[in-house]
């Protein structure tokens, strides 16, 4: 993996180019990572992936813990790694231990031995050695080291401990790993600017290819975030890429961009898809579509519409006019409304392809 900053704004925001070894075209940053379940998108099957814009859609996020549900590292190695396993040799995978949907960090059970997660297999304690074993078999393009993430309301003592552990586990992961792939050092620190700075300084000293900034999306408010993000990015080397998880809404992503973040996860899309929402905000930003704010629209607002709403029953227009995505080119709001009402899987497939 190679990363280079292309252009700067007046502040910390920057655009860049990310080169993956297995795909010829570079990916422009800031960029989103597509959420996956066991390596494939939740609903978009692999033959439909090419219909998403390329190369922007070529970065996928994977959570190694998903495979604990039935696929051993030995088998993954036998097939040749994650890319071969999921039939996407030209896609980039970034592995992060935590996933905002099903593998949530459980900070009360985390201890000095490993990080605890609530998963569909129950509560699991993952040691750095286990984690590195999974990563080695998967061979992702990028992987974040194991971190002790804590939510915003923990005690100062617990927060300090999380920083100490995360740095120690970073060293362990690097020492144990023979993986190849770009290592992203994990930075935590909870709601404390000092701890964030302390962690960042420690991590910046290590030889890593990029940084994963954790501990967000765990209950802190949007207002607190810019200060914390800026505290981190101020110290980091500028030529190395930064990935953050847990920033959901478009507005939150923009906050991250302003602070100098290059890569974002997008579990938000998964939640939207399940609820029946389609994103509709204009990408240009300048011309604003006027949406009549109807309280019966089940939460629709200027950036999204809820296709379960009955006003769409007979609406034969595409979700967004003049949009070139598969869903808008082939289907109407009325059809998606029907699919949602009868609980058909095709609804989620079409909605996930839309953003």
């Amino acid at each position: 993996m190679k990363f280079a900053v292309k252009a700067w704004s007046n502040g910390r925001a920057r655009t860049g180019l990310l080169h993956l070894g297995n795909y010829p075209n570079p990916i422009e940053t800031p960029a989103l990572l597509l959420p996956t379940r066991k390596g494939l998108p939740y609903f978009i099957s692999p033959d439909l992936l090419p219909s998403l814009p390329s190369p922007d859609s070529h970065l996928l996020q994977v959570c190694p813990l998903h495979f604990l549900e039935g696929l051993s590292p030995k088998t993954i190695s036998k097939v040749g790694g994650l890319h071969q396993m999921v039939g996407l040799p030209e896609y980039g995978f970034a592995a992060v231990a935590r996933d905002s949907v099903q593998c949530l960090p459980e900070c009360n059970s985390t201890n000095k031995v490993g990080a605890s997660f609530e998963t569909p297999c129950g509560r699991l304690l993952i040691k750095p050695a286990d984690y590195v074993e999974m990563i080695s078999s998967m061979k992702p393009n990028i992987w974040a080291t194991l971190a002790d993430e804590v939510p915003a309301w923990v005690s100062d003592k617990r927060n300090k401990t999380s920083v100490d552990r995360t740095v120690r586990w970073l060293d362990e992961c690097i020492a144990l790993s023979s993986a190849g792939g770009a290592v992203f050092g994990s930075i935590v620190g909870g709601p404390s600017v000092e701890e964030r700075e302390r962690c960042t300084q420690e991590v910046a000293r290590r030889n890593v290819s990029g940084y994963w900034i954790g501990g967000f999306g765990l209950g802190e408010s949007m207002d607190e975030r810019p200060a914390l993000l800026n505290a981190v990015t101020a110290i980091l080397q500028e030529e190395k890429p930064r990935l953050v998880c847990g920033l959901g809404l478009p507005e939150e992503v923009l906050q991250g961009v302003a602070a100098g973040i290059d890569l974002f996860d997008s579990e938000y899309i998964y939640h939207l898809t399940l609820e029946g929402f389609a994103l509709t905000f204009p990408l240009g930003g300048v011309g604003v579509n006027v949406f009549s704010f109807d309280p019966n629209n089940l939460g629709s607002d200027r950036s999204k519409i809820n296709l379960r709403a009955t006003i769409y029953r007979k609406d034969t227009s595409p979700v967004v006019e003049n949009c070139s995505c598969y869903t808008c080119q082939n289907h109407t709001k009325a059809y998606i409304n029907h699919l949602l009402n009868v609980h058909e899987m095709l609804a989620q497939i079409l909605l996930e392809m839309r953003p």
Partner: protein
Amino acid sequence: MALRFEVLGRFNRARAANLTLPHFLCQTPLFMPVGTQGTIKGLTTNQLEEIGCQIILGNTYHLALRPTSELIDELGGLHKFMNWPRALLTDSGGFQMVSLLHLADITEKGVTFQSPVDGKPMLLTPEESIQIQNRIGADIIMALDDVVKTTITGPRIEEAMYRTLRWIDRCIAAHKRPNEQNLFGIVQGGLDPVLSYAIGGLAGGEDKDSFWRVVAQCTAALPEDKPRYVMGVGYPLDIVVCSALGADMYDCVYPTRTARFGTALVTEGVLKLKHNVMADDTRPIDPTCACMVCKNYTRAYIHCLVTKDAMGSQLLSYHNLFYMMKLSRDLHSSIIEGRFPQFVCDFLRKMVVLYAFFSLCHIHHVISVVTGIFVYLRELSCWGQGMSGSMIVFVSIR
């Protein structure tokens, strides 16, 4: 009539044909996936085209409930609503009513039932069924028939047969779009000719021996120049057998439903991907299958997805339907190219031998399968080839 049926090749009773419908030129024998509520579960219309689907079945009962046939009509018909450019077939709604609803009762007027929405008593008449199907706009529509369980015996069967005939006349009279939609009549225990033919009331739990005999009887008596549709069939073996007996069209939820339970259709029969033994099997589901799933994925990976993640259902449905479409194409081309008996013997050899070994607890079924195979192996003149030899040996071991 809005249909042309042109037989292009034959072997004994089997035939391969071009079936020209308003929206698509289909090749028979063919299998129709069931898209109950206006979608095949988990697949886009693009994928269905790629796999080679020619006709999809929509269930009138479900669509009339949601989003209603009036809405579909207002929005231009089901083809436009789902954006499916090829052919569609709708059933009459009668079967679902009888099988899904409590307190469904059949009288001369029609099927009376309790509305699942508000519990009010409602009546589906032959006229109403046709009108709903006219609004939905499928290429082929079905007459409302008096469906009886195949396990019932006695005077009810005869009553159902005569009533079905009276209802077919009412359906014909009520049909408003004969130039755009083809009405198929349903053979229920009787053999009088109607417009085109569906053989119904089977595939409901009767034993295979009787099933094949009835199909053979019907195809022998029905006119040659119209397509025959055996409803609710089904298993690949049944489709091969019925095609040998002269049927042309089939529908069943089996391939997609069994996919959602983690079972793949393969040359040797079925593969249960849920089993733990699949967890480190790094072979593809079917090494001879050319579909996207078999080319890219291992049994181990699919094993970790099935019954837990939507993607598992999608990938298996894709493979299973690909398998069924390939079976349809193989049946069509083997008849036209004059190698139908070889195809059938080959198909049976691969499937039955292994199927028998793995179905130790289904001895009776297997034996009746084998017995049924003898019935038409005679038709195919397969006696004397190695196939029948191994069959006899197999039966005597059991």
